[in-house]
């Protein structure tokens, strides 16, 4: 089955099969809106908040999404398999680090 993913803060829309992660579907369809990091639940670059819809969560690093955040709908897109249409917000800015440049030192 195919469902539709909407990234609310960028307006990006793409289809995702219900047996694959929404990040894999986004990357495969050359869509953007969620930053692609390790793709394996470790780095947290693809952190999202799910606003509506049902999904299955895979294993991800608790350093990226805590249990209480998970209960509030936070997830990593690389380990999120949709069951229905999803509306999500990409949150990557919350874990961005300083680029190395002249302003890169605290």
């Amino acid at each position: 089955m195919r469902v539709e993913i909407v990234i609310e803060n960028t307006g990006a829309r793409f289809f995702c099969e219900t047996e694959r992660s929404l990040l894999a579907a986004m990357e495969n369809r050359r869509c953007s809106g969620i930053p692609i990091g390790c793709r394996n639940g470790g780095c947290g670059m693809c952190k999202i908040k799910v606003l509506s819809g049902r999904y299955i969560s895979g294993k991800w690093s608790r350093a990226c999404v805590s249990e209480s955040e998970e209960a509030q709908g936070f997830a990593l897109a690389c380990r999120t398999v949709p069951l229905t249409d999803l509306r999500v917000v990409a949150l990557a800015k919350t874990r961005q680090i300083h680029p190395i440049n002249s302003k890169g030192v605290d």
Partner: protein
Amino acid sequence: MAFTGILRPGHIALRVLDLEAAVRHYTDIVGLKETARDGNKRVFLKAWDEHDHHSVVLREADSAGIDYLGWRVDSPETLMRLAADLEKSSLVSHCEWIPAGEHPDTGRRLRFVVPTGHSMEIYAEKGKVGNGMSDTNPEVWPDGLTGMSPSRFDHCLLYGDDLDGVVKLFTEVLGFTIAERVVVGPEQVLMAAFLTCSNKPHDVAFIRQPVKNKLHHVSFFLESWHDVLRAADIITKHRVSHDVGPTRHGLTRGTTVYFFDPSGNRNEVFSGGYIHYPDKPTLTWTDDELARAVFYHDRAIDERFMAAYT
């Protein structure tokens, strides 16, 4: 003996989310050899040309990243001398002795926390299990190699906040030299340091970032550029999560490809570099030329390469 003190990074302990998936990755894809398991959900592995019992430790946990990095020293006397120096240094905290045998076939280790928040260890004894070939009239490589089959665990790159403190510790207490560095702005603030205790361009590197105890990548050594290309073929053949490359670094001159393990820890396999001597001038890169330093051909740094870490 001309080469004394700390000899090499002897083991890195990594946290993984799924132990068996990690073991399959590090054996079938990377090509390390499993040497032991213990009751604490830990698996010990080594690269083919390492003689010591293990160089990589995988532990299943609920987060990815690095547990600790262990440094092999040349003798029990050096271990005692460095332990005394570390215990009185204001640059380290949480010094504790880990008893012999806590790692299989390994002597006692002094564990300590450095200013960037990483746990480090020094130890003098680990069993020699050999590289699969005789020490007398050997062959040049053993049978049964799999995957990318690097010859050794080479170095890692770590992210942390107190770069000045960690560089001071490694150079003034542990005897490292700075092979290369990155400086920023007119004040030439130190942003990255590539530290060596050997003839390698780096045994460990640190980048200043406003975090503690983070891993950028763990790196394994290949013999040739062709091996790097073949490693990239393996990444695609097995649909491994690819990061950057094959390409070359300006920094350290290594030819390289980056990818991620099944828990998101970044791996590198690389070849090349140069011979470092302690009297070699430190190479300095400035921030306006940083992209060429990091990726010599593209002369651009992918956002993911800096922003993804565990």
